């Protein structure tokens, strides 16, 4: 019997998820033994036309990381969707837009202007030229993918069977997912989130929590934190309470506040909004000016509360140009 086929792909991502796959160490040999890897641009030399030539639904498992923000990502997503039996949105970017999703705070026009014109290191010629999708040269014509106005999560572009959160997903969790598929056990219902639990980061965090009353917010470098006390109790904005657990509270164990990469817990629709609502409920002040002053201490609210989830949130993006 032929081995099941495995495909891995990266769209708009940093490559961390690919490295996370390799972080399962020697178990990668078990993956190679169990699967026939048919597509993995990061690690092996396959061409798009190789995949295009395959029959529909011939790939048993596809781990797709990265958000979709240009025509190439979308094209490959649609192609892999057609060829795969099980397609997994792998990592925070695929799940909810991730860090690239913060580009939705601005417009394509602004991004291009900064990158191709305004940066001091850029020498502009002819008033600056933006990348063109089609350009003709004497050797022939060149076509490059088109940058989209809006960054999208994978499930906003194609249908997805499962989700594995994390930036990147933790190696143990990746292995647990792969192992489950290798073992041939019945698959969970469609739309399930794999490699994470139903509780929040606080569940795994070993710090002592008190009843919250916040009089002042700090950035991590501003104070010496107590390693045993809840970071939020100490005034550091920690996304832990509004973030799904599964990572093992890696960040808070390292004295760093949770960034929220595992996404919202099961019943939360909008992770950032939920955290804002929670924090504003525990501000210990009565006067409006005092509340304003305390809230002003939170640096970069959008980047803090929507660091990973903006593209998939209710807000989605700023108004289009």
């Amino acid at each position, binding site marked *: 019997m032929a081995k099941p086929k495995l495909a891995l792909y990266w769209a708009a991502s940093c490559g961390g998820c690919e490295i996370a796959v390799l972080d399962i160490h020697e178990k990668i040999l078990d993956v190679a033994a169990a699967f026939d890897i048919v597509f993995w641009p990061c690690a092996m030399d396959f061409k798009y036309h190789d995949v295009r030539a395959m029959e529909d639904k011939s790939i048993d498992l596809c781990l797709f990381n990265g958000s979709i923000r240009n025509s190439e990502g979308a094209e490959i997503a649609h192609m892999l969707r057609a060829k795969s039996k099980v397609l997994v949105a792998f990592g925070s970017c695929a799940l909810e837009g991730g860090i690239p999703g913060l580009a939705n705070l601005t417009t394509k026009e602004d991004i291009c202007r900064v990158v191709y014109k305004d940066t001091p290191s850029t020498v502009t010629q002819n008033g600056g030229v933006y990348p063109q999708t089609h350009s003709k040269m004497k050797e022939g014509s060149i076509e490059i993918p088109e940058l989209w106005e809006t960054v999208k999560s994978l499930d906003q572009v194609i249908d997805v069977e499962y989700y594995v959160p994390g930036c990147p997903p933790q190696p143990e969790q990746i292995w647990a997912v792969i192992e489950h598929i290798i073992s041939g056990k019945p698959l969970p219902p469609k739309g399930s989130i794999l490699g994470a639990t139903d*509780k929040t980061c*606080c569940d795994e965090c070993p710090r002592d929590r008190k009843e919250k009353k916040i009089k002042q917010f700090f950035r991590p470098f501003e104070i010496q934190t107590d390693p045993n006390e809840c970071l939020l109790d100490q005034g550091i904005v920690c996304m832990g309470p509004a973030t799904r657990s599964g990572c093992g509270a890696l960040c808070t164990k390292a004295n760093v506040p949770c960034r929220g990469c595992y996404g919202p817990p099961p*019943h939360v629709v909008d992770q950032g909004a939920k955290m804002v*609502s*929670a924090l504003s*409920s525990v501000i210990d002040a009565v006067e409006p000016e005092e509340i304003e002053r305390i809230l002003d201490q939170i640096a970069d609210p959008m980047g803090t509360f929507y660091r990973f989830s903006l593209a998939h949130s209710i807000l989605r993006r700023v108004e289009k140009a």
Partner: protein
Amino acid sequence: MVTINIDGKTVEVLEDTTILKAAEQAGVWIPTMCHSEYFEPYGVCRLCSVEVVRGKRSRIVTACNYPVRGGMTVHTNSEKVKWLRKIIMELMVSRWPNVKVVKEIAERLGVEKPRFASLERDEAENACILCGMCVNMCNDVVKAGVLGFAHSGIKREVVLPFDERSDQCIVCGACAHVCPTGHIKVVFEDYRGKKPEFTLGPKTPIYVPTLQAVPRVPVIDAESCIHFKTDGCENCAKVCEPNAIDYDMKDEIVEVDVGQILIATGFDLFDASAMAQYGYGRLDNVYSSLEFESILNSTGPTGGNIVMKNGKEPRAVGIIHCIGSRDINHHAYCSRVCCMYALKFAHLVRDRTKAAIYQFYIDMRAFGKGYEEFYTRLLDEGVTMIRGKAAEIVEGAWNENGDPSLKIRCEDTLIGKFREIPVDMVVLCNAMEPRKDSDTIRRLFSISKSPDGFFLERHPKLDPTSTATDGVYIAGCSQGPKDIPDTVAQASSASARILSLISKGEVEIEPVRAMVQDEFCSGCKICNNMCPYGAIEFVEEKKISHVNEALCKGCGTCVAACPSSAMTGHGFTDEQILAELDGLLI
């Protein structure tokens, strides 16, 4: 029991009783100078010397420490005894000719002019006669061990260690209390020589808090009780026949499970020293209303006599209304009870003294049953009513005899004139204000306060006894200034409300409640502090939060705050609300 004969009288006393006590029982006077019931006989003055005859032998002994024996005959007035006492008293009179107690005993013993001249003659009326009572008191009873004798012979004197102020002295005043000549005086000052503030505390460290106290038993004020400073004294335990005094009793915190709570924490009195113009705390004989109430009390510090600090009766008393109330600088509200108790004060001052009485009022609020009649009666009693708030109180001399007195400056608005009224004593009618810790109580029970700071009732007209928290009721001045009839009425109403629920046995609650879905709660403790009804508790074993459904009102504050959406509102879940929105928006 043994039978003895004292000066021809036969008495039956317990064996080992001292002759002095036996003589007391027999009604025979024996002079003493160094003896006190408080401590063991000292036997140093020798004045109690008596002649004891047993069989054919006769000898002189000191009555204060000599135990009786069966068949003993005592002569307290024999020639030998008289001769001895006379010499002792002659020696004392020669040294301390002007001390009252020495003169009295000398007179009683027939000593007129001493035959001796003392080398250390002390003419002072309050000279130290070296009886040693203070030393014994300090060492044996108080157990502070501060006082002692130094030197010997005619140079003998009572001293403090190294002749310096001692940290061991607890300033109990027991030495001054027993000193028969008044040589020892207690000067109340701290180490900087500053006088302590004059306060009207309990008369003794063991006292019954009020005549109305329930149960009516005495309590010990550990702050001022000698026993708690030196482990000594215990005089109260010695005289208590049922042995009810227990020095080891401690304040204890008792936890009681209850279904309903009535808060009646009362009020604090406005501190009039915040209004410097009235000189409270600065000028003598300016009292707050509660202090004056204490002075009027027959079990109070003056036994109900209205006297000034110098012990004299005041010639005129000024009573000033609205101190801190009806005043936008302090409390805007009317304190309600002051007009009537001010009239009561006036009535009692009129009843007990000959003092002239002046009432300084803004307007007279005699609103209750029988109050207006009382006001009219007071006017007939000759109380001078001055409409106008007193401007200030200054020290001023009352010209008659130069005694220091006070002057109240005010505008009499009825005659449109500025007036200065000389008085000896001023009573300020301080506002009632919320207890200083009322905010703590408020948070404990999750109830609100009105702008004046008193606890807020659920509805000012329709529900003046219950609060926003079910099962928590308020009564009395914790809800607002009120007099005794109003307090009784409100407290009765609250009790009736409580009883009606107890007799019903069960309580119906609204179905809209918040609920924690245990499988999604991670115990971040964001919700625990915010519930206005105190319904959210933290389950330590499971490390998750739990909603007490009997307390929850379904307001949804916690549902909005829960960052993991583990908290949901019955009937208002996110899914239901989103479905409703979907239905509306399509």
